[in-house]
């Protein structure tokens, strides 16, 4: 059990790291709501929020305050414990995923000690993410069932079956990538994408496995319950989907956890496919700047890529109309899963051929 033999400084360092990651992802999720409205406005020839502070930058704070001040309503015939458990679970699960993401190159202190910018380098990092994603359904289902409203329940069933369907395609598409990397550890996958160009080809997995990236991207849209797959909410047509009965900050938790999920998913996409904290010319940078600065440049690069993905998610949301439910199921089961399977087979054959 080497796992449990740990020193105090290590624990303190990890606690600080976890606090920073959670605080950072909450902050980014907060400003995602602002960015979402700004992006929507820009695409629709409007200006968006601009009243609260410069460029409306205090808008998320105002929204949060508003949600806190709202009356908290718990339906009489609901089961109260589960009603509160639902949004808490949604929030918990979305915060949990960040544990296995390598946020940057190891920090090297002046006394030579090394601190890893990853909460836990488990050798099954990708599977951990799948586990957390598959648990995300419970927040929706429990909350909807507990609100004792048949429309919430129906919506939650729609959301859950969507999530389960697309988890399959997500998992199968990832197998091809895992076969190439030969490891499930996030840290190792990132290390394999070191730099940008090596041995006459790109190191980033998006260039090695573009179809996996495509399937993964589509599935993550579905997993995030975001447009064009936001069947769970349909906020423009229906009352609100699974969180119809929710008010105040419990509703805020649901909405907020979606934005955290979006941030984490963007980080995962950039980690798995766009080299994580790697960037072209990083060896030159490593040779010319102090190691501390080098680490922080890596973190900044990763966050930059993630922000790019967040903007892409918003870009798609304000462009593409929603899929119909049968189209969604057809796309998931009849297109993406066979496509991912064929891609997996071809990848396996190619690897077998070259590693003979």
């Amino acid at each position: 059990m080497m796992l449990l033999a740990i020193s105090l400084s290590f624990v303190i360092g990890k606690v600080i790291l976890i606090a920073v990651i959670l605080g950072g992802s909450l902050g980014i999720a907060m400003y995602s709501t602002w960015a979402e409205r700004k992006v929507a406005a820009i695409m629709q020839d409007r200006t968006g929020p601009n009243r609260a502070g410069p460029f409306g930058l205090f808008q998320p704070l105002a929204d949060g305050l508003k949600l806190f001040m709202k009356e908290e309503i718990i339906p009489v015939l609901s089961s109260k414990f589960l009603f509160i458990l639902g949004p808490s679970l949604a929030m918990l699960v979305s915060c949990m995923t960040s544990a296995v993401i390598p946020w940057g190159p190891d920090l090297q202190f002046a006394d030579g000690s090394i601190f890893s910018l990853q909460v836990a380098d488990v050798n099954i990092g990708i599977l951990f993410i799948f586990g957390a994603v598959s648990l995300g359904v419970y927040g929706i289902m429990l909350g909807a069932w507990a609100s004792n409203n048949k429309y919430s329940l129906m919506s939650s069933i729609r959301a859950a079956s969507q999530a389960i369907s697309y988890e399959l395609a997500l998992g199968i598409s990832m197998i091809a990538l895992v076969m190439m990397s030969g490891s499930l550890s996030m840290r190792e996958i990132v290390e394999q994408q070191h730099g940008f160009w090596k041995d006459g080809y790109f190191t980033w997995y998006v260039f090695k496995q573009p179809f996996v990236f495509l399937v993964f991207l589509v599935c993550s849209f579905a997993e995030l319950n975001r447009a064009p797959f936001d069947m769970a909410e349909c906020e423009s047509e229906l009352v609100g989907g699974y969180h119809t009965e929710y008010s105040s900050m419990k509703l805020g938790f649901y909405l907020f956890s979606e934005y955290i999920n979006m941030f984490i998913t963007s980080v995962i996409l950039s980690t798995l496919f766009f080299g994580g904290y790697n960037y072209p010319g990083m060896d030159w940078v490593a040779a010319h700047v102090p190691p501390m600065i080098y680490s922080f440049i890596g973190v900044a690069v990763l966050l930059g890529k993630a922000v790019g993905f967040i903007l892409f998610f918003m870009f798609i949301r304000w462009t593409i109309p929603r899929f119909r439910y049968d189209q969604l199921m057809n796309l998931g089961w009849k297109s993406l899963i066979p496509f991912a399977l064929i891609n997996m087979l071809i990848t396996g054959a190619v690897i077998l051929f070259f590693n003979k």
Partner: protein
Amino acid sequence: MGIHQIVFWLLSIMTLVFAIGVIMSRNPISSVLFLILTFFTISGHYVMLNAQFLAIVNIIVYAGAIMVLFLFVIMLMNLNSDTEPQKNVLVQFAAVISGGALLLVLIAAVKKTFTGLEGKEIDLVNATDIGLIKNLGKVLFTDFVFPFEIASVLFLSAMVGAVILGKKDKEIIRSVEV
């Protein structure tokens, strides 16, 4: 008592409490939730045994997929403690006997296992790495490849059966409509 012994006892107690909760709670939904918690604590045991792959697969497959379907069915059937059918005394008696017999078999099996290992020194600190994904894959595809394939055929047949059950028989529908 080392730290991992403490964790072991804590996890075991939690597992047992949650498992008893599954059969004791009258609301089917809370039963399912207890079952999910039981899976989590069992995954904790897997992690203690250095089988992280098994732990996470246990969570993905059982807690993440199968129990969601259980929840689906229970929520749609709208079961609650009022609709629980009254059980016959005879049935209860039979259940006690069969349950007791199962318990006896399990205890006998566990007892036998312990006697088989008593003489050996088990290295708990450096537990085997059989649970790690690489070793597990090798074992599955060499020593246990036949049972593994049999299991996959079993799953395939279950899937085919589900599809056949789910397919509407046009003849029957027509006769119902007439």
